[in-house]
């Protein structure tokens, strides 16, 4: 069964990378994209088809990743959705803060596309075998 994945990243190429990994692996999963936290919240507010998983970039204009995460975790319905941080930096403060607010994972984006593809593959396979709300 395909997962509904919401990817929140302001960088177009990052979104392309993610789509390419899904496509190259022939995953049956469906991905929705948002350019920043505000756009994502608007999407989620409709509550039509809620995603099973959220992949979240931290450094974004307007509402950044951690701010978005706070909003999400304070919402009675949305706070069940697992959020995995995809960040460029392993800044310890961000890492701690993300887990404190309620992130379910924290992935540092590697430089090489091959390494990235590998990490995302593992990640998706892990969440595929999980039971989700």
């Amino acid at each position, binding site marked *: 069964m395909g997962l509904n994945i919401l990817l929140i990243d302001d960088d177009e190429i*990052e979104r392309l990378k993610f789509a390419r990994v899904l496509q190259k692996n022939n995953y049956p999963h469906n991905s929705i994209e948002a350019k920043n936290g505000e756009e994502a919240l608007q999407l989620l507010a409709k509550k039509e088809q809620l995603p099973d998983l959220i992949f979240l970039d931290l450094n974004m204009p307007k509402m950044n990743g951690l701010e978005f995460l706070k909003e999400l975790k304070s919402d009675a319905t949305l706070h069940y959705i697992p959020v995995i941080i995809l960040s460029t930096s392993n800044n310890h403060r961000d890492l701690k803060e993300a887990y404190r607010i309620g992130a379910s994972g924290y992935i540092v984006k590697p*430089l090489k*596309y091959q390494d990235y593809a590998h990490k995302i593959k593992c990640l998706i396979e892990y969440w595929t075998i999980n039971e989700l709300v």
Partner: protein
Amino acid sequence: MSNENVDILKRALQREKAARKQAENILEEKSLELYQITKELQKTNEKLMYLVGKKESELQGVFDNLVDAYVLMDISGNVLEMNHSANQLFGYDIIDDKLNVINLIYKEDYQYAMNSFQKLVTKGFFSDYQARVYTKNNGVRTVHINASIIKDKNKKPIGAQGIVRDITEELLQKQIFEEQKKQLSVIVDNSSLGIALTQFGKIIQTNKAFQNLLGYTAEELIKQEVKDISLKDEYAASADSMKRMNHGEIDSFTVNKRYLKKDGNTLWAKTNVAAVRNHNGDIKYQVALIEDITEQLEFEKQRNRLVKNLEKSNQELNDYAHIVSHDLKSPLRSMNALISWLKEDYQEELDENAQKSFDMLLKKVDKMDHLIDGILKYSSIDKTDQPNKNIDLDEVVSDIIDVIHIPDHITIKLTTTLPVVQGDKFRLQQLFQNLISNAVKYNDKEKGIIKVSCKDIKTYWEFSVSDNGQGIPSKYHDKVFQIFQTLDDKKESTGVGLSIVKKIIDLYEGKIWIESEEGIGTTFHFTLKK
């Protein structure tokens, strides 16, 4: 002979008889009177003798018991009598020696002595004569003399007596005391600390510094009480310490308080109050030492401000490094992805040349990423605020040898044991790892040998990491520690490793220097403070 004649003769004889009888009676009477007078005189004489004797012995007693020296001399200065103290003082005994006081006069005081003696003769006395004399055994002594003249019943001077006191010691003590007093007042007057002597809260003495600090004259201050120049609530605050001092619980206390200056401004001063007690332990005086700390407090404030600013800019720098690295790394990742896709998607269309160019592009991207990591590490090396711990460097170095990739042709030896040092594990690991991996990376020999050792030099540890690699030309010995300085263009050389090493050694107050011969090898020596 006629009867008449006989009668006349008879009558005459009778008259004569009677007269003789009367004369005899008078004589007897007078004799008795005389006897009585003689007796009385004798009695008076005895009484006088007794009185004279008594006076004489009284005088002798005074003479003998006089603590001061007593000298009796004739008008020419020949000594007639001396008491025991005089014998002691001058060292002469007139029973044995003839002595004239003129011989005792100190040469330089001769004129003064003669003038005084003149005065003695004309006025009959002198007092408070002070001069030096020679003594037999004690050298020159300074004496004080009161003298008076002795005259006979015709008011003719026949001698003089004097009471002599040796004041040499007294003068010396007085001189020492004056000297010390002078020394003390030089110190007190020139002290930059304000000093005040107080008694029961009243100011009784101040020094110049105290006067200058508060802007009062000495006279103005003497009229004041301590509480007049203190702020009300602060005076109350030190009252408790004052009470404890009065009770003998403490002998001094220090307080930072403000003083009211004459111009109405206040002065922050560190004040040390000490008690001066009498032999009963009761307080006689208090001595207050005050030090102007207005500037010190200002410096402290300024320092706190600077520290705060520094903390802030450190934090900003830290954030900045992370943000910059994030922003710089993002495009690199995109480039890497796009190039990889081009290679993948157009594999068929691209010739070997194009593939090679893409590979070189990827390498450059990779190098850029390393550089950014280097900056991040360099900027965060002094950010860890971990407390210092005991770090076993033997363990640290063996861990490094396990972790880094060491090709088969290279061996790493610990030629001495490494000590346990106080420090931050991450930093020490970085330090050794960068040096060892450099030695591995740049080794060009068939059999590479890397040695790590340590020497104990009192307050420092001196370490060395030596290799038999290509060596570093001496003109680069300083340059290699500068950030982004590399000596070759291997893809993993970023020019950050050694600058991190230098930075860590600086943090531990050590030094690093290079000993190297081109083609033979390099030794990095460095010290860490114990």
